[in-house]
């Protein structure tokens, strides 16, 4: 269910600091290995290519409509930066306000604590099943598995999460968890797993949606407990917000007697007014819609209206440790729109599973290693060509490429003994800092000409790590003279 607990990070005095994140944040394989498997799947490549290019186009069109997009984006960035600077105050205010309105606030240091709290709360109601609103935080902590382990039935109600759950699969995208499946594959999953489904079900989207609707409706009506995440938690009023497209979330948020919300501590915003900015940035960036279809907000409980018991579980799971890094903390500004996934050339080819975390794509490559500690997820910061497309579309201007580069350095600097790569880079750095040595090194590279034996490119079969290049691309034979050399020869010094 959840990975081993790496233990809290320690300061140089040995005092424990914030706990590291546990849960579904790291894979069993390194990114390059997992990607290799994914890249062989032609159907996956086709599904992802089609889906991401469609969403990319929609986003680009609706963003271009707003003349003040750059200002909105800057406002979003500034609001997040200011909130993070006083995160503790805002969280305590949120707790006071939620409590004042009849809710109960729980603080969870990590995934295990959060799962224990939610499990205890559900069992206390006597219910045997739970309906769920689509939520990244509960995917992160592996809540479904925890609830199932004590014999509870858990039903995902978001259409894409339902597809993933019925297919015994894992989400591969933050917003569109089943993006790796096409409609023919979805029809197959429904036909196989939904009890009493029409055997003549086709892969027509409306038919698929109606089959899911019939399956879910029954569960909404009998559910006594719902679990949700939150897009925003407003400190000044204790209001929680869920932003969704289907209305299934609203059913969960309004019909059951008990509502339990698991929210990452970075989701707090100080005031209602802040939603003005985020509710413009989020739908255009995520689904390419001008306005979000279902925006549900609630504060505490209201007698005779909606859930009569409300619990808010505030989840750390590594976030405080991220906040301590002045470069990396920007990753906490993320509003989970997934625009960066949709434009990422790496994500588009490998899909989300290769990242091994519930947070895939560029934001996942900076968030997951920080939540777990870089050494526990060391391949993810390298899973990017640093093309910068993610930064360009990010609605809160998270400089993802700079954080990736920063985390690569954190990883390199955490090594106690230098490996072959580090030795090579140190040697090269020495040469590149001294013109005389550099010219010698350049001359030495000409030894490559011996392998070329007069051909313009080097042989395909070269030893690692150069083989990583030469397996699929030719490498030019080094010329007999560098430019600086020949220029200096012609012009004198």
């Amino acid at each position, binding site marked *: 269910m959840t990975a081993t607990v790496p233990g809290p990070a320690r300061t140089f005095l040995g005092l424990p600091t914030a706990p590291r994140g546990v849960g579904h944040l790291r894979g069993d394989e390194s990114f390059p290995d997992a990607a290799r498997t994914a890249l062989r799947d032609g159907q996956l490549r086709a599904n992802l290519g089609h889906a991401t290019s469609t969403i990319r186009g929609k986003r680009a069109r609706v963003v271009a409509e707003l003349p003040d997009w750059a200002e909105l984006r800057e406002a979003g960035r500034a609001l997040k930066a200011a909130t993070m600077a006083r995160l503790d105050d805002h969280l305590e205010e949120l707790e006071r306000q939620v409590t004042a309105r009849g809710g109960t606030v729980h603080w969870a240091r990590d995934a295990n604590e959060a799962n224990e709290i939610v499990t205890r709360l559900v069992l206390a109601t006597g219910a045997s099943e739970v309906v769920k609103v689509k939520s990244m935080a509960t995917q992160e902590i592996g809540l479904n598995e925890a609830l199932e382990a004590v014999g509870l039935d858990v039903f995902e109600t978001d259409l894409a999460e339902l597809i993933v759950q019925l297919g015994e699969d894992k989400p591969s995208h933050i917003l569109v968890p089943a993006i790796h499946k096409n409609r023919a594959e979805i029809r197959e999953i429904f036909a196989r797993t939904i009890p009493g489904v029409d055997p003549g079900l086709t892969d027509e989207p409306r038919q698929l949606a109606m089959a899911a609707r019939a399956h879910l409706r029954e569960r909404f009506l009998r559910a006594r407990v719902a679990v949700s995440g939150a897009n925003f938690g407003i400190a000044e009023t204790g209001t929680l917000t869920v932003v969704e497209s289907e209305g299934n979330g609203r059913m969960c948020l309004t019909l059951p007697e008990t509502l339990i919300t698991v929210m990452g501590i970075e989701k707090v915003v100080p005031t209602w007014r802040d939603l003005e900015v985020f509710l413009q940035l989020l739908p255009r960036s995520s689904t390419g819609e001008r306005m979000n279809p279902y925006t549900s907000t609630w504060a505490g409980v209201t007698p005779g209206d909606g859930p009569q018991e409300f619990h808010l579980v505030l989840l750390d799971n590594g976030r405080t440790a991220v906040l301590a890094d002045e470069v990396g903390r920007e990753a906490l500004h993320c509003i989970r729109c997934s625009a960066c996934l949709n434009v990422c050339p790496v994500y588009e080819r490998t899909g989300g599973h290769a990242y091994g975390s519930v947070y895939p794509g560029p934001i996942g490559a900076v968030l997951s290693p920080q939540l777990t500690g870089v050494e526990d997820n060391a391949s993810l910061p390298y899973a990017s060509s640093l093309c910068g497309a993610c930064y360009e579309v990010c609605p809160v201007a998270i400089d993802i490429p700079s954080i990736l580069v920063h985390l690569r350095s954190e990883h390199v600097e955490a090594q106690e003994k230098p490996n072959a790569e580090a030795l090579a880079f140190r040697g090269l750095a020495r040469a590149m800092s001294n013109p005389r040595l550099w010219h010698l090194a350049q001359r030495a590279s000409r030894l490559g000409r011996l392998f070329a034996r007069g051909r313009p490119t080097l042989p395909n079969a070269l030893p690692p790590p150069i083989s990583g*290049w030469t397996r699929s691309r030719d490498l030019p034979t080094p010329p007999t003279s560098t430019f600086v050399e020949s220029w200096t020869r012609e012009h004198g010094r």
Partner: protein
Amino acid sequence: MKVALFATCLVDTLTPTVARATATLLERLGHEVVVPTGQACCGQMHVNTGYRREAVPIVANHVRAFAGAEAIVAPSGSCVASIHHQQADVARRAGEHRLAADAAELAGRTYELSQFLVDVLGVTDVGAYYPHRVTYHPTCHSLRLLKVGDRPFRLLRAVRGLELVELPGAEQCCGFGGTFAVKNADTSTAMLTDKMANVLSTHAEVCTAGDASCLMHIGGGLSRLRAGTRTVHLAEILASTEEAVTPNQTTRPAMSV
């Protein structure tokens, strides 16, 4: 104007014809070109691979080599972007504040070739002749970090005899990414495959760009496929004239300078 040419480590060592073309072009436009012999590398590969501490002396060497230069031009969007966005940061982080200030000051006088031609020299027609069907790949760092915009297109459109064809999916990365191409070779190759398919769909004879590194990647893939389409740096196209369309003005692996 006296222009100091920063060849970049990759061009100097592997594709010197690109630096040669840059010098030829600037001289043809009436400027004096100097090539500081102390130059080596901007430090980008070290920084981007995680060796930011090791990059500090490389930055120091770069700053030393170009100290006092009036304007510095490099035929690479990526290296110029690193000079603009990384050098001072890396020095500052290492506590080398003097070096950081010098690097920032030098960055202010450092230009990518197309930006130097259009913004500083104010030319778009450089008097070039290149009778080929050409497609342009806007490299990521030129596009997103330096924001060179339509400058390369304006320069290419003014080249006599050149037929410019649009590259589908132009703004997608070719998959190079420095050490990414080796550390994540399979993903990089998947990106390259799609880039090459787009390049070949244009039926261009030549794919050009402002970065020799990305061209070495695309060109290395096309060469492996024996595809026939070759990669030629923007500087080499702009350096070509009726009198001197030399056979070695290509980024095909050069056997001599």
